[in-house]
């Protein structure tokens, strides 16, 4: 098996606000290997995006803070790096793709200019032609047609799909070890989404980059990820290989999510649905966080938090029902 690039251990991230402490990420552990894609799946406000931002140490100041935990990239605990050292990691070792291609590029600078920045910053290349070469190869990596002619274009002259490729080029321009992709395809149309995912599989094959893929869409997970962690209210409730998650989910929440989505390959008359809403992060239930909505709830679920149990190689679940 290839080497572990990133390891997150017992990460706690909170937002301290006027109304109290939001425990957005509450004890999350996982790892990603070289050339592997790890999916972080969950509904809104489950903490998946905050996990991504914690790894980059780019939480909104001053409310967001990493309370405890350890994040190791290639053996270095990045939470112990100085601000300046961390900056040298960003863009060079760890990069990220944001959700909305329409707002994530600076509207007043050309595409070429924006891709060149990390190249100049991290690879310390000043020669104009060298930089341009690097920029073009980054555009080529993301299969952007006629890259030489794209350099002088402004973001608004491109379609959403193309812009998201440009964002991908920026992220990959320094060949990082780890790429965090936060819902990169959610804003795209179905056929463009399929293109983008196929493209990223190729990019991964070429560069061996480790990818954390944050999404709410199980279809995307199936197509893109090797392993998946399902998040609910700040915790990972189940981690397993993708096919295991789909075929033999053990946590009732995973099960509910997978079965409440209508299937394209058969006609359903009714959908399986769970009632209620995810709990408020300000006021979490004392026991299992899913207990109030769980169809298989037991007494202990409301009293104590379940521990993570590894039920088979690479398949861990946090549920009292699973022994």
């Amino acid at each position, binding site marked *: 098996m290839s080497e572990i690039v990133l390891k997150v251990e017992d990460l706690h991230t909170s937002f301290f606000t006027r109304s109290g402490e939001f425990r957005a990420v509450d004890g999350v552990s996982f790892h990603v290997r070289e050339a592997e894609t790890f999916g972080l799946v969950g509904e809104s406000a489950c903490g998946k*995006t905050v996990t991504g931002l914690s790894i980059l140490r780019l939480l909104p100041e001053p409310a967001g803070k990493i309370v405890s935990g350890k994040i190791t990239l290639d053996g270095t605990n990045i939470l112990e790096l100085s601000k300046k050292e961390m900056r040298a990691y960003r863009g060079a070792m760890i990069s990220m793709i944001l959700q909305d291609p329409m707002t994530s590029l600076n509207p007043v600078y050309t595409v070429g200019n924006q891709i060149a920045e990390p190249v100049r910053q991290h690879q310390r290349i000043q020669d104009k032609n060298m930089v341009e070469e690097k920029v073009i190869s980054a555009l080529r990596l993301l299969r952007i047609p006629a890259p030489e002619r794209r350099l002088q274009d402004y973001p608004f002259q491109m379609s959403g799909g193309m812009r998201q490729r440009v964002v991908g080029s920026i992220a990959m321009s320094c060949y990082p070890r780890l790429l965090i992709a936060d819902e990169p395809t*959610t804003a795209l149309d179905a056929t463009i989404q399929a293109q983008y995912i196929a493209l990223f599989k190729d990019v991964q094959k070429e560069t061996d980059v480790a990818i954390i893929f944050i999404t709410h869409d199980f279809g995307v997970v199936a197509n893109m990820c090797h392993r998946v962690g399902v998040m609910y209210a700040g915790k990972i409730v189940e981690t397993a290989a993708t096919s295991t998650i789909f075929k033999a989910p053990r946590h009732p929440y995973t099960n509910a999510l997978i079965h409440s989505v209508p299937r394209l390959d058969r006609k359903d008359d009714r959908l399986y649905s769970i009632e209620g809403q995810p709990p408020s992060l300000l006021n979490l239930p004392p026991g299992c966080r899913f207990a109030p909505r769980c169809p298989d709830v037991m007494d202990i679920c409301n009293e104590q938090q379940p521990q993570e149990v590894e039920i088979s190689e690479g398949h861990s679940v946090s549920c009292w029902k699973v022994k």
Partner: protein
Amino acid sequence: MPEKASDSETTARPVVSGLSRRARIMRRLTFIVPVTILSLMIIMAIFADLAWLGLPDVGLAPYDPVKMSLPDRLMPPFWDEEGSTEHLLGTDKMGRDILSRLIFGARISLSVSLLVILITSFVGTVLGILGGYLGGRTEAFLMRITDISLAFPPILVAMLLAVSMGPSFVTVVLAISLLGWAAYARLIRGETLRLRQMDFVAQARIIGASPLRIMLRHIFPNVINPLIIIMTLQIGLLIITEASLSFLGVGIPPPAPSWGNMINDGRNLVDTAWWISTFPGIAIALVVMSGNFFGDWLRDKLDPRLRQL
């Protein structure tokens, strides 16, 4: 249309503020102090005298603000050796009591501001909603006028009117209002454009609501917050504008005790009788600051999105 991940909507922008205790007290103070000052000013304006109750001799002001008394001229405030408690804040070069003039000045400043705010906010809101909702040429035309009005110094209009009509209370109100509506129209139009895009307006059309009903029931209630905020923030601006006009001699004509007039009176005497200009200056600063703080507070409470106002 591609689906929107709802992450950004619900999570995650917890109000970014790790407020300390001290900051919280400060925040409360920035509300209490301005409101107290503004209330004091309103009380001063209403009870300067009770002429409106038929009791011209009863009121907060110790003297008639325009009554001259040359023997008492240029008396300093009471804490000065030459001052006396007869005239707490001293007298001007005509021997008029500064304190009484300040109290009556509040009445003038406030009535000008209120009148202008009523006129301009009404006109601006109506034009803003109409322009924003109807769109097309009406809107384009309206916006050009608005831009020009915003860029036009109201002081010049006041001067033109002062020359043609002669300076008076009415001239001042008219002159400021003539351009003042534009600020409202611009803001309200922007808000209306934003609201018009909202699905609930489309929904109102689908259920068959008339344009008038949509403007009144669906758009207007949603622009009330920004409207109140901008009205509050305008108080200060208007008081300064009125004072400036009076200072230049195109505002409320002397001897009426407008704060701007008072500063003008003391202008050439700053070295010998500093109190004549200083007290009205402080009064203006206090009231304007209160208005602005109160407006800011309201905005943070009602609609933090409007930070740029």
